[in-house]
């Protein structure tokens, strides 16, 4: 287990070096997929390596000339990395521009300044009931597939797509198993380690990640844990698109809380909902995108409530409260949040919101919020 965790920590501590090395080792082109809705399986089936774009850990410098300071962290960090030539190992990019205002800016910035060898703009629809939405999503994905075929010069067969989906589904079920064990024995992994495990899967070829996960799971199954009853269980919710600062995760644990489950994008959201392998694989991928749960505020779903889902997750895990992490300048999350908060108040659920910024974070302020939250749910 320790060996796997240290390999995973190695990958996530230098994603640039890892992905550049991967390109050389596998002699394949790398396609950066902007989080959160690009179906990586199609890129994989095209014989390319899909990698989910990440937020770097350095302050934004030259990138300021291309993106406004009121864009979210991953947007600014990604453009900054591109300007500074840190992403030269990437051969192309896919953006889903309807996701949020920020995501809509990329294709133009990238096209104008960096001219990647391949670039695709996806325009996946907001989810309204009815066939029109499904047809729209399917057409978009078909055009994505065609653009990759044009780029590589090779057709993507249904069989190869199904094979890729199988590998991705396998990854989802392995990740689900990791979470299942974590729910039963939350002390087994630190919250930071869990995030690193999910994140490494966004960087590594899924085949390699699957091997690591299998080894990790057997270690987790064997390991006996003494439950720390005094620790208060809490659920993490939100934090779209990017990694949460690890310091915050450590702080949560240092303050006597423990996280048995989450609904973060770099968390359970990423591997939720396997793709249905019966029938047309493209339709199945469209259907996965159109799945409403776990609710994502970028999809425009109004008939189920994010708050209800979070509360259910909290109760299922016997947790005492919810920590919402909101990325600063993330419009979809910001717009949904007042409604989320009202739901918490209606249901009498104790919740605290931590706002996370790319560069500046006052850990003292975060500590006071988290400690007060822990005191409230702990009955001080």
């Amino acid at each position, binding site marked *: 287990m320790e060996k796997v965790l240290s390999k995973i920590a190695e990958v996530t501590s230098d994603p640039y070096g890892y992905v550049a090395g991967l390109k050389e080792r596998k002699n394949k082109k790398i396609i950066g997929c902007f989080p959160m809705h690009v179906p990586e399986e199609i890129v994989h089936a095209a014989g390319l390596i899909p990698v989910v774009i990440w937020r770097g850990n350095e302050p934004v410098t030259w990138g300021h000339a291309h993106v406004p300071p009121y864009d979210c962290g991953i947007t600014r960090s990604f453009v900054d990395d591109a300007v500074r030539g840190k992403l030269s190992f990437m051969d192309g990019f896919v953006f889903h521009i309807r996701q949020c205002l920020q995501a809509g800016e990329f294709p133009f910035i990238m096209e104008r300044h960096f001219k990647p060898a391949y670039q695709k703009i996806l325009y996946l629809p907001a989810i309204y009931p009815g066939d029109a939405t499904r047809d729209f999503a399917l057409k978009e994905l078909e055009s994505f597939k065609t653009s990759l075929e044009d780029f590589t010069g090779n057709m993507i067969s249904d069989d190869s797509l199904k094979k890729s989906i199988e590998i991705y589904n396998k990854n989802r079920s392995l990740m689900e198993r990791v979470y299942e064990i974590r729910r039963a024995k939350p002390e087994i992994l630190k919250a930071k380690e869990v995030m690193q495990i999910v994140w490494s899967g966004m960087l590594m070829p899924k085949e390699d990640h699957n091997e690591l996960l299998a080894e990790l799971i057997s270690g987790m199954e064997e390991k006996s844990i003494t439950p720390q009853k005094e620790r208060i269980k809490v659920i993490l919710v939100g934090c779209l698109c990017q990694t949460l600062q690890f310091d915050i995760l450590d702080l949560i644990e240092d303050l006597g809380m423990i996280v048995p489950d989450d609904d973060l994008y770099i968390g359970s959201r990423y591997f939720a909902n396997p793709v249905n392998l019966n029938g047309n694989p493209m339709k199945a991928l469209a259907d996965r995108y159109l799945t409403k749960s776990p609710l994502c505020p970028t999809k425009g779903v109004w008939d189920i409530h994010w708050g209800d889902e979070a509360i259910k997750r909290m109760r299922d895990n016997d947790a005492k409260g919810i920590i919402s992490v909101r990325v600063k300048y993330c419009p979809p999350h910001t717009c949904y949040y007042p409604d989320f*908060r009202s739901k918490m*108040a209606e249901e009498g659920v*104790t*919740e605290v919101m931590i706002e996370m910024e790319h560069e500046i974070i*006052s850990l*003292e*302020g975060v500590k*006071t*919020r988290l*400690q*007060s939250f822990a*005191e*409230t749910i702990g*009955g*001080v």
Partner: protein
Amino acid sequence: MAVVAGVDVGSLCTKTVILDGNGKILSYDIMRSGHYYKGAAEESIENALKSAGLKKGDISYTLGTGYGRGAVAEADAEVTEITCHARGAARLFPEVHTVIDIGGQDSKVIGIGDNGRVTNFVMNDKCAAGTGRFLEVMALALSVDIGEMGDLFFASKEKVDVSSMCTVFAESEVISLFARGHKKADIAAGIAHAIARRIMGMVGQVGLREKVVMSGGVAKNAGVVRAIEERIETSLLVPHEPQIVGAFGAAIIASERMSATIG
């Protein structure tokens, strides 16, 4: 009977409250925190001990709170100022359901349940807007003593809007209001209303439930208190010494912990 202490190390002031075994305040101290919180905590405890006629060894349990709660070397434990202000306010005014606390560098609005415990809270600690530090800078810009700011509010005759809440921008706004011929009292009232607008937004997030207590050093400014009352259309309960509510709450929790230990 166990004597306990609550020490609230704030960014601007450090406060200590000493309680006797029956929960009665034996003494308290308020002093500037300066730049060395550990030293400020020690000195404040010493001052409070002296006024109570006690010595260090007489304290059975010390609880640290506030921004510098980690710096209280004597502390047996630390609890956040949010929990402590809630506990202190609930002891002073058992019918309280909302606490507005404006301290030296941050402001908080705390929701309190019927059991006197925190239900929810919001905190503004991103900048000094509307805090004690903000008022100090504004008093300097107005060339008045900080203590006079509250009285000036009531002498105001004309409505003046201070739109900026950023300490730096508000300072230049005050100067330009002078340049336009506005009176000190009107500008001071404008500043109080600007603080009140900001607090109103925070109260909206937590949900206004009466009774409302105001704690923290800014509660000593009657102008700000009145401006907030006008905004939220509710009268505020202000303790006799609003600055020590956090330290008082800390001492109450210290007392509870002592009784739990003694059994």
